[in-house]
């Protein structure tokens, strides 16, 4: 019994680590990843590989050059790369995928000081960068099961332009529709959501309020239940609400703050979809609320147990 370690309490720790949390997110994304490859074929697999690999390598070389502690082990770069790939359509070139991934990791995350210091979600910002730099990235692609060109338009584009035929609701659920490779299969995304809830990685507040807000507002604006359902299942709402708006770093803590944050995301999404120039508004909505997140957190102060109001001095 020599060499006893003496350090401050507590002396035990839970098994949750950043790495385990990120691993859970990757596992939750697996159904959507598999669906993407099945629905959109070999190109989808290549895109995923390129995005993930360039995300990891960007972080690795950044840390190396900036002489920082190597952090790729926390798996957050894998999550970013995978999410970015799943948010792009097969119309995007592989070199563009690589560029988006590098932008997300280096400019949005590493330059601000790495994981935890970034103010916006890297995958979302990477996608927006590609939207702005190279035009539409979600539309124009069709699944291997419906080769007709007209099926390439996303349901949201069809609703917005008023021309073309909407896929059946069944096809919407299994993901047989145009869109980004990972956003189409609603069932796969919901399986991931349930997994994250069971593992207590996220709480239900943000996804449910976000999706609920979009649904209710669409119903009010369009007065049509079917359209409202397409608004929920079409576009990137599910993947955004489940996997990107729930990002710890860029969403507020506290249940009420989370609800306000998600409500804001929903409102902006609907505004852009119905009145904006883009057919899809989920990414912009999340990015905007990311920026507001610290302020929302400040508005909603949880009163400490036994805390008394500070007397103005």
């Amino acid at each position: 019994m020599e060499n006893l370690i003496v350090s401050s309490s507590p002396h035990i720790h839970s098994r949750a680590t950043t790495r385990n949390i990120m691993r859970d997110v990757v596992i939750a994304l697996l159904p959507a990843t598999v669906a993407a490859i099945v629905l959109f074929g070999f190109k989808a697999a290549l895109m995923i590989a390129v995005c993930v690999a360039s995300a990891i390598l960007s972080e690795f070389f950044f840390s190396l050059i900036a002489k920082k502690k190597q952090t790729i082990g926390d798996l957050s770069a894998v999550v970013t790369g995978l999410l970015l790939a799943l948010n792009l359509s097969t119309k995007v070139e592989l070199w563009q995928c690589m560029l988006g991934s590098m932008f997300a990791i280096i400019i949005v995350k590493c330059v601000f000081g790495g994981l935890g210091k970034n103010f916006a979600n890297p995958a979302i910002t990477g996608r927006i960068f590609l939207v702005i730099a190279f035009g539409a990235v979600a539309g124009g692609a069709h699944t291997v099961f419906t080769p007709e060109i007209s099926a390439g338009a996303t349901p949201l584009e069809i609703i917005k332009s008023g021309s073309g035929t909407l896929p059946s609701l069944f096809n919407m659920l299994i993901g047989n529709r145009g869109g980004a490779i990972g956003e189409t299969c609603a069932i796969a995304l919901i399986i991931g959501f349930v997994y994250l809830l069971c593992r207590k990685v996220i709480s239900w507040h943000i996804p449910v309020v976000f999706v609920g807000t979009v649904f209710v507002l669409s119903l009010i604006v369009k007065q049509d239940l079917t359209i409202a359902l397409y608004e929920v299942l079409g576009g990137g709402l599910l993947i955004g609400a489940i996997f990107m708006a729930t990002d710890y770093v860029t969403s507020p803590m506290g249940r009420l703050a989370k609800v306000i944050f998600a409500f804001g995301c929903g409102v902006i999404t609907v505004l852009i979809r119905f009145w904006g120039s883009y057919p899809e508004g989920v990414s912009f909505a999340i990015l905007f609320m990311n920026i507001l997140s610290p302020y929302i957190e400040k508005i909603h102060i949880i009163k400490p147990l036994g805390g008394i109001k500070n007397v103005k001095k």
Partner: protein
Amino acid sequence: MFGIRYIGNTHIPHFKRTASLASIDLPTPKSVLVPMLQHIGAPAAPIVQPGDTVEIGQKIAEAAGYVSSPIYAPICGTVDKFEEYLRPDGRKVQAIRINWNGEVKFHHSVQPKDIYSLDDLITAARESGVVGLGGAGFPLAVKLDVLRKNAIDTVILNGAECEPYITSDTRTMIDRADDVRQGVELLIRTAPAVKKYIIGIEKNKPEAIKTMRETFKDLSCVTVKALPQRYPQGAEKVLIYNTVRRVVPEGKLPSDVNVLVLNITSMAVLAKYCRTGMPLVRKSVTLDGSAVASPKNIKAPIGTSIKEIIEFGGGTTGEVGKILLGGPMMGSAVASADEPITKTTGAITILSKEDVQLPNETSCIHCGRCAEACPHLLKPLLYSNSLELTDKEEKMKILDKNKIMLCVECGSCSFVCPAGRPLVLNNKIAKSEYRAYTEEMKKKGGM
């Protein structure tokens, strides 16, 4: 949706492997080292000299002030010498070394005490040497003193025992139910203003709950409340909220909301003192942890070295990383196994090398787990973040606004943090900086 029914939010492992094991007695050790400070307050003043012969229960040190507590000889023998003892918190105090002379004899002062009034009870509490056995070591007499005001309407007996491994209070409730009952009866007799007695026990101790319900079946003023097993259920303010829904404001005491919280074992020991006159000289400790060969509850004289208890208990297995006085959440790590157990020791926890590896510290991912785990609904991440600031005023403003002083150092936040940040340690640092700052401000007359 936003309401909270019970506070205290952390699931930690229980490991209550010793819950079904009654304490076994340690044979009298060859020598004991009795520190003069085993409580909060002033160290006791020795009244024996080296060379004196003492008997079990003989007073060897007198309480030195109102907040202090007398100390009694735990074994028969000769006072060898006065030594310097370094407490785990870094304070140096005097300690008396007593060598056993082979006898087991009670001192003649060990006589039953008659209790007729609250004064008698408080005097008995002072003389019994009992201090808060739950950990902090606040003298019991000082706690009972608030009953004089006649304002206290509820007494809560703390049997939550929420730390992993420890089962000594659990065993008190099962093995010494009569003592617990007598303790409560003493209070009922001498403090008529108290309307209600609540015994709070975490749900994971069904046997203790059953025994206590059985014991107090016929006393309508006593309720046994089964509490959810969430850490830190036994923290005073948490327990008060979860049993009577009263919030103790910042900087106030439980007595300000007319509640008194007493450790259940403390009351049992006081009852025994009144009945037999035997002061607090032995302590039942739980010996457990991942590096303990066979977990046990062991009753040993105060001042026995940790090493002796471990050897009697069957030794350790594997590589020992840390030895703790207390449990793994709030206990303090000792530098050597030669250190003695004291009045406040409820457990000796020995953890393997593997278990005490400090987590790799990475940056905060803002996951909110620490805030969710905090029983006082604080935001521990903000304290740690503020320590990185160079602007002192700004730092103090953040600490002040976010109520750093409410932190009870329960350990929950560090336990859950996936980034492995030493949040509790940072809280302690932040607290002492904040304390120094407010002192300074007061001196300047600014506040």
